[in-house]
């Protein structure tokens, strides 16, 4: 079967800095795939390039068989690709409900209200606070809002950039539970994490990034068991 997302030998530069050096990987329908690696390895850059916020100099990205390179960032989401960006980036001065409405910006019709109810059912905390301005939410609630906002676009592939960043361990657990639930409900997920242990234990497959290159790949279990990975990313 054709992979849902195919990244082929992309090179991304920040000015003269060569941030991504020929990365290739795939995500298949229904999988959770994770990209792990240290700070500055190029994980976020990869996701931002797929979503169109950044552009690759060479190489190609195709989503459901369609090339993405020429698609402007604001048109990517309507193709079925949603990114929950690093640091959540919810609209702090807008209400919870308005944030979710923005997630469905490219859609219209009755389905939007139904999905709003679905998001509220998944995240009851958001429903309790639907009129509150997002800036008043806690970090964990903001992460839920960012995820709910992305789900409002009905993504075929959900990309999550460091969803556990800055959260207390109990919240991290909750977030990973939500990721697994979303996966069970049929969403394909591309997950970027520094928390390699947690990411690999939920992922079907993983890729390890080091300074802009993929150095290892394998199933989640294989990578968890690999001594080199253990040493480098799992604290011995």
């Amino acid at each position, binding site marked *: 079967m054709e992979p849902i997302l195919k990244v082929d030998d992309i090179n991304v530069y920040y000015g003269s800095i060569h941030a991504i050096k020929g990365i290739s990987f795939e995500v298949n329908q229904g999988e959770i795939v994770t990209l792990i690696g240290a700070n500055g390895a190029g994980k976020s850059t990869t996701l931002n390039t797929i979503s169109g*916020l950044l552009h690759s100099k060479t190489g190609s990205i195709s989503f459901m068989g369609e090339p993405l390179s020429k698609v402007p960032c604001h048109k990517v989401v309507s193709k079925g690709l949603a990114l929950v960006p690093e640091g959540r980036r919810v609209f702090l001065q807008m209400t919870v409900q308005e944030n979710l409405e923005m997630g469905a*910006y490219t859609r219209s019709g009755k389905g939007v209200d139904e999905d709003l109810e679905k998001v509220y059912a998944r995240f009851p905390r958001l429903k309790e606070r639907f009129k509150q301005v997002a800036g008043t939410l806690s970090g964990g609630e903001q992460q839920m809002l960012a995820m709910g906002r992305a789900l409002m676009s009905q993504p075929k592939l959900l990309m999550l950039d460091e969803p556990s960043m800055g959260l207390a361990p109990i919240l991290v657990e909750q977030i990973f539970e939500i990721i697994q639930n979303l996966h069970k409900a049929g969403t394909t997920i591309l997950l970027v994490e520094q928390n390699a242990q947690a990411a690999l234990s939920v992922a079907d497959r993983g890729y390890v990034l080091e300074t802009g290159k993929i150095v290892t790949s394998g199933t989640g279990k294989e990578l968890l068991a690999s001594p080199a990975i253990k040493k480098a990313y799992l604290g011995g």
Partner: protein
Amino acid sequence: MTFLNFLISGISLGSIYAIIALGYTMVYGIAKMLNFAHGDVIMVGAYICFYAVSRFSLPPVVGVILAMLVCTVLGIVVERLAYKPLRQAPSLAVLITAIGVSYFLQNSALLLWSSNPKVFPAFFTTESVDAAGKTVTKNGIQLFDGRLNISYVTIVTIVVCIIIMVGLTLFTAHTKMGKAMRACSEDKGAAQLMGINVNGTISMTFAIGSGLAAIAGVLLCSAYPTLVPTTGSMPGIKAFTAAVFGGIGSIPGALLGGLMLGVIEIFAKAYISTQLSDAVVFAVLIVVLLVKPAGLLGKQVREKV
């Protein structure tokens, strides 16, 4: 009673400043730039309306609508040609470009319409026939045996300002486009991820601001009917001051700043000195910014570390 007269003309002048200030504040909120050419769009609007009504004898309403159309297009074109190519440039480059556009518009007006002052037609008058059968033209209403004079221009200006403020507030709070504008003003990258066309939204902001500038131009020239190519320059700067005064980026701030500036200016003219009135206005601005650097209703921006 003279106090009340001054207060009303201050509010009226302030309403014009507020309408102009909206253009500055909305563009700043979304594009994070100061469009110093905004004042000159007012002048263009006033000229268009002047020519439509005085030379082509079109009804005033048509003149105003024409002025709004021309200014809206002008705003979009200026943004496309002058500012859009500088989206990634340092803000200083954008600022200098805006000053350049301002001079470009002024000198184009000089070339097209010459420096001879035009007398803007009086729109807001009523005609009636008195007891002797003579036609009497009135430009306002008198209350308390003529001790309180309120011109029609003043009334129209204040009413128009209220309508615009209410309309714009509802627009940003409840419409999809308005919400998209707020999203863009907070985080353009995240807005793009939602599928919002940021360039389109910026264009839209310039269009609205410039359309409002045309209205402000007509109101301004109705109250102060001398029209020259530099007509928009000083009100533009005052309105920018009003926007900063109220807290740039904030729509209620533009209203508050505009009204306060107008009232202070008229009071300073009336009770202190005509020549010093602008000095008083800017002195008040400096004091306000010393106490509240973000302006009266501005939000303190926290720098991320």
